[in-house]
């Protein structure tokens, strides 16, 4: 896992959910955050795609409901070089 990707994912998620970066981590999920609703979820996808200039797979984004899943999805796409 590239450290830079992890940092950037945390930064994007912190911006979207208006939280300090240090509150984004393995525990952060739809189950632990009141802020993670369906509107913020789509905003998160848009922000991640803009940040990494990639298109995240549709089947992944509809189940990407915790920090680790977000990080794994982004890392997988970026590593495969699937840019927009």
């Amino acid at each position, binding site marked *: 896992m590239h450290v830079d990707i992890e940092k950037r994912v945390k930064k994007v998620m912190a911006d979207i959910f*208006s939280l300090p970066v240090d509150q984004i981590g393995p525990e952060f999920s*739809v189950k632990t955050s*009141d802020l993670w*609703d369906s509107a913020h979820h789509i*905003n998160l996808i*848009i922000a991640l795609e803009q940040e990494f200039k990639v298109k995240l797979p549709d089947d992944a*984004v509809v189940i990407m*409901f915790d920090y680790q899943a977000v990080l794994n999805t982004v890392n997988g796409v970026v590593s495969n070089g699937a840019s927009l």
Partner: protein
Amino acid sequence: MISVKAPRFDINDDKVKLVQWLVHEGDQVEVGMLLCIVETSKATFDVLAERAGILSIKAIPGEQYSCDDVLGNIFENKKEFLAYKEGALQEQRKEIQGEVVLSKGAQKLILEKGITQDQIKALGKQVIREADILSLLSEDTGLAQGSPDPLSRHQRMVAQVVMKSHREIPAAFVALRVYGDRLLAGIAQMRTQKGVIVGIAEFLIYSLGRLSKKYPSFYGKYVNDHFIPAGEDCSVGVTFDVGHGLFVPRMPQAANRPLQEIITWLATARMKALRNNFKQEDLELGDISISLNADKDVEFVVPFIFPPQVCIVSVGSIFEEWSQTTPGNPPMARKYFLLGVAYDHRINNGSKATQFAQAIKRILEEDIIKEMGIG
């Protein structure tokens, strides 16, 4: 090199008119970039770049072209572009030899700006100087220096709808505060217990569906000075703006939809908005619309009504206030959002609009919690 060809949009239209170039001769273009606008007898269309490279313009704004005519060419690099231009200029020199004399400055500009042989002949001069070409360029309405950024076709369509709305609909607006603690607790419960992520939007669609029979004058269309109510069932349009334009897909048969179906529909619509792949039938106008404005710090917006609809309901993002709900008890934090109803004043008056807004508020604050067993 690949050619940019006049596209065919309709089997009945063999010709298109070039309305405007949105890029300049010699510009670097990227895949998907908007190059020019053409129009048929029915509508205007964007022509996009199919590859990256340097553009050479051939077609002239205002002229008609047959489908598949070459409007321009895209070259792989500047060297290839300049070689083509030099060759084209030599051809032009040969063809107009004896007819006109080109000064060196004029030749340079012709090369740089892609002036066509017909344009040169149209000047009607035997000796053409640099000033003549500059004069020709200044008349070119499509490429004027310093002209404002062009609008995309989609944004032009949005502009038309907004202008029609403001021109034709005498709209009024009422906003009220909805306390969302119980609803948000219910949403959190759905997340933690079922792993389903929802938001206020899903519940608002649900609420509007349930109220269509009780408040029919907010659901329908106003056409030729007559209001046509939605009838037995209603469809609810939801606005999406995810960066490449405003879309308002509609959810059909919203009056009796179970919440789960609404959740699935909205998730699918959001993905379609994100990927820009709505079908025409998704975007037919509903009987009422919802404007979602959940971005941080947005209290509320006053949306425009999509003609010929007569109402649109808006919600802003969630805020927190400290207030004393029971005398004698300490203040407590409460979450709220603002609900707005923009309505056509020809059909409804303020008191009725307020009743409608209060009915939505009641469902969101109380009824839905009981109905769904959440919160």
